[in-house]
């Protein structure tokens, strides 16, 4: 059941350029199990900013009742969030949405996890759950530039990990798709999260090859399915739609129009 809680900041640290890892503690964690689900954060108790901010769950620790998010401090909301100190509380609504289908991969199969920028975080929990199941994971992570790279080591501990940067200052120069092609990576399933152009490229290239699950972003109002802010059309010229917040954010490739 979705709920709301004032959760305690356990740790909060910059891990790359403008990127923070924030760990919160509270009973809500017991509701969290699907990688790819997100929480909707209220950064202060005023109405400025008015809206909550959707952030993916990057790591779940049921034993400690803690979970971790990784976010980029960019606009008003995330900048205010980045000022929260250890011991302070953050208003969390969630977990929301439907995550990646871990059940789609079976023991012994190979899953490729493709992340772009701040699309990388939810793949971390996903990868752990896949590994726990005996699935072989391959990570392909894309960033703008060397100072933007994060969590490479953590992913390396779980499986093969390739990093691309657009400017070539770290890892392979280029996009995640370049790596997949160059390394001729093969896989039974693909899970991806990142900017729409990246998802489109993946859908175009690999949709026929293996089951492909994409996590989408969309500007949100309510985050719970009530306001129709976050819809995606399902096919051209029809009134059919899916809501990113409550039907997604993870969709099977082809389920919605990118």
């Amino acid at each position, binding site marked *: *059941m*979705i*709920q*709301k809680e004032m959760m305690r900041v356990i740790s909060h640290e910059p891990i790359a350029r403008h990127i923070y890892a924030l760990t919160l503690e509270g009973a809500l964690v017991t509701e969290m199990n699907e990688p790819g689900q997100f929480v909707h954060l*209220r950064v202060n108790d005023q*109405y*400025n*900013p*008015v*809206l*909550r901010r959707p952030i993916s769950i990057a790591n779940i620790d049921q034993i400690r009742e803690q979970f971790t998010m990784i976010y980029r401090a960019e606009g*008003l909301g995330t900048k205010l969030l980045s000022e929260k100190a250890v011991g302070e509380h953050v208003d969390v*609504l969630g977990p929301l949405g439907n995550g990646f289908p871990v059940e789609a991969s079976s023991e012994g199969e190979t899953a490729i996890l493709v992340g772009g920028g701040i699309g990388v975080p939810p793949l971390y929990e996903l990868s752990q759950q896949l590994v726990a199941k005996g699935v072989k994971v391959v990570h392909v992570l894309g960033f703008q530039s060397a100072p933007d790279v994060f969590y490479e080591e953590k992913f390396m501990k779980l499986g093969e990990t390739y990093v691309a940067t657009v400017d070539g200052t770290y890892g392979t120069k280029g996009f995640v798709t370049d790596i997949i092609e160059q390394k001729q990576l093969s896989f039974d399933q693909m899970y991806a999260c990142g900017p729409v152009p990246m998802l489109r490229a993946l859908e175009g290239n690999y949709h026929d090859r293996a089951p492909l699950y994409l996590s989408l972003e*969309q*500007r*949100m*109002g*309510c*985050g*719970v*399915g*009530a*306001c*129709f*802010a*976050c*819809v*995606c*059309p399902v096919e051209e010229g*029809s*009134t*059919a*739609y899916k809501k990113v917040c*409550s039907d997604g954010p993870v969709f099977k490739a082809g389920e919605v129009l990118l």
Partner: protein
Amino acid sequence: MSMLETRLPGLEMKNPIMPASGCFGFGREYASFYDLSVLGSIMVKATTPEPRFGNATPRVAETSAGMLNAIGLQNPGLKKVMEEELPFLETYKLPIIANVAGGGAEDYVQVAKELSTVKNVGALELNISCPNVKHGGIAFGVDPVVAADLTKKVKEVSEVPVYVKLSPNVSNIVEMAKAIEQAGADGLTMINTLMGMRLDLKTGTPVLANKTGGLSGPAIKPVAIRMIYEVSQQVNIPIIGMGGVTNAEDVLEFLYAGASAVAVGTANFVDPFVCPTIIEELPEVLQRYGYDHVSECIGRSWKKHESVAGYRA
């Protein structure tokens, strides 16, 4: 009788608090947060004759103490609303206010006629003021003659009282309100969103795919209060007020201005529990300011009362 009980045409309500149309869907999502029966009423999402997809995304943008939306009246259409959405709400003990929209007068008449026959629909709300649809919609909302004509047509077919939702994007809100009252409306709801826009700094182009959108949230509260203050003194039908309400104090301010009940829109997105929280806190807030019943506050800003002395030491 409870401090909060409120009776308006078609609406016998436990309290004067309800979610505003478009901010609560058809209740399903918020039903997982709390028992909807605690609400005075629910203003459900606009319904048009046929299903509508609405505008392209992005459909929302944030502004200082407010937000813009251009949903474009997305809804599953009259049939599905009657067969699935409204019946779902029958589980809860409260009258529903059904929001009626369309592209032309005949759409409104058709939707109104049908929705008004649904058992739990206590009243209709004519959305003549949505700034986000290209045809119809806004034109009705800014021309008193057209608005009055539509009101008459809908009144002829509706089996329940009809409230008309006013647009704030007009030069003379009182003129609009009076025309609609004379046309037979049973009540007014106000205000809908102000037309606004945000531009993306990188591209220079509008953030919303629809370019303009409706401004809601605390930013517009002073405009709502002013308009309700002006209109409530000039009409004899009740007003359901809305625009930036976030807490019980805001509710008081809307009642003072002249509203008889108050709807909460944007604030639901920030705090899904905002309506039950307000309902819970309202009696205490009323008491703090010396009222035994919500009705005592209505129109206090302009009705003759003894003024409460203020001494601050």
